[in-house]
């Protein structure tokens, strides 16, 4: 029997990532905070209720339309804290830099982190830098960890998804992934399509202060909307149905998907949130989201149902309903 190796697909956010977490990480680290399996952990320190999270960033290209690895590293962690129902406060930044990396690029990345932190109203309070030999890393990798204060009266948890709730998506899908992939695949995008990378904490905090009843918050990053919905359905043992007709995808993004054979439902986003809320609070939630630049196009895309438990269905444009499953690994450009 051959030794099992880690494949790229293990890092895709799909079924293989889940398998890695379930079989390797969870047995080693299992505890109540981790086992909730949310974007961030909820912990109590000396009576203070905190959210704590970490995220590593290895994007290629490092600089792209609408952002760079630095902005991504700050927004990613800030958003994870927001999705846990917390007010984001402090971040750490760890850099792993390849020997020979241009200092000017490092300055650019760091400056963009400074700006993103300013915009998100968080402080980077500690950090670390390591340099590895040429070839041992690809340019630069950044890890950020973050601490936030859980918002009083709010209880965000994937297990709280239940039948009858509406599912809100705050904007169009796939802009980030498509921006990143375009360059790799020799596509040129029009200037209006850029990464949606953005700190969502301001918008989410206002939402939570006004609608504390919000049940679940997730940001559909790696693995996209389909993966996030599957995770929630499985954690809550509820069903989910979304309507293809209501899911916003920019025509340019759709064009890239058509060219490369990708499905926008699995593409990564860096500035979108998926929100589960009771129908009585839906209009209020939408009204608040729509006032924000990152939530202008927010809309209801589906509902939580009782059955089929743990699964997600998609009502298609022509009216059929079919399973919307998680992918085993990465989407590959396919000609078939």
């Amino acid at each position, binding site marked *: 029997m051959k030794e099992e190796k880690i494949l790229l697909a293990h890092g895709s956010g799909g079924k293989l990532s889940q398998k890695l977490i379930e079989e390797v990480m969870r047995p080693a680290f299992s505890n109540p905070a981790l086992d909730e399996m949310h974007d961030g952990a909820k912990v109590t320190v000396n009576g203070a209720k905190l959210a704590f999270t970490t995220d590593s960033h290895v994007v290629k290209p490092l600089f792209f339309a609408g952002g760079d690895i630095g902005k991504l590293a700050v927004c990613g962690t800030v958003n994870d804290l927001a999705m846990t129902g917390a007010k984001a406060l402090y971040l750490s930044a760890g850099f792993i830099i390849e020997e020979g990396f241009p200092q000017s690029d490092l300055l650019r990345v760091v400056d963009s982190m400074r700006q993103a932190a300013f915009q998100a109203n968080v402080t980077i309070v500690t950090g670390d830098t390591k340099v590895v030999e040429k070839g041992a890393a690809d340019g630069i990798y950044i890890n950020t960890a973050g601490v936030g204060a859980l918002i009083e009266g709010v209880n965000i948890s994937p297990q709280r998804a239940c039948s009858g709730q509406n599912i809100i998506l705050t904007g169009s899908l796939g802009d980030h992934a498509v921006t990143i992939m375009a360059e790799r695949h020799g596509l040129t995008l029009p200037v209006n399509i850029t990464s949606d990378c953005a700190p969502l904490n301001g918008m989410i905090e206002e939402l939570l202060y006004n609608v504390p009843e919000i049940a679940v918050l997730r940001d559909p990053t790696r693995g996209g909307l389909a993966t996030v919905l599957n995770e929630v359905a499985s954690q809550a043992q509820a069903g989910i149905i979304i309507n293809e007709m209501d899911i916003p995808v920019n025509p340019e993004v759709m064009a*890239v998907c058509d060219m490369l054979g990708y499905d926008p439902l699995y593409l990564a986003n860096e500035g979108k949130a998926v929100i589960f809320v009771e129908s009585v609070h839906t209009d209020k939630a939408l009204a608040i989201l729509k006032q924000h630049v990152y939530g202008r196009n927010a809309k209801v895309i589906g509902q939580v149902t009782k059955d089929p438990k743990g699964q997600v269905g998609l009502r298609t444009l022509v009216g059929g309903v079919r399973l919307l499953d998680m992918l085993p690994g990465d989407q590959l450009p396919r000609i*078939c």
Partner: protein
Amino acid sequence: MCLAVPAQIIKLQDMLATIEINGVTRQASIMLVPEAKVGDYVLVHAGFAIQLVDQEEAERTMELLKELAQYEDQ
């Protein structure tokens, strides 16, 4: 293994076309449809234009579908 998309040729240099869909552009070879001109719609597969799209037929199909959509109303 037969995914292909219709796109418009917006530039042509020898056998290499720049094709466009909704503002997204990429390069495609027209070796397999050497008669293609700028402005033509072509079907693109694996980096090659493999056939010209007959715009009249495309419009006809679309019109028919729109008509059928009305049919339900009556």
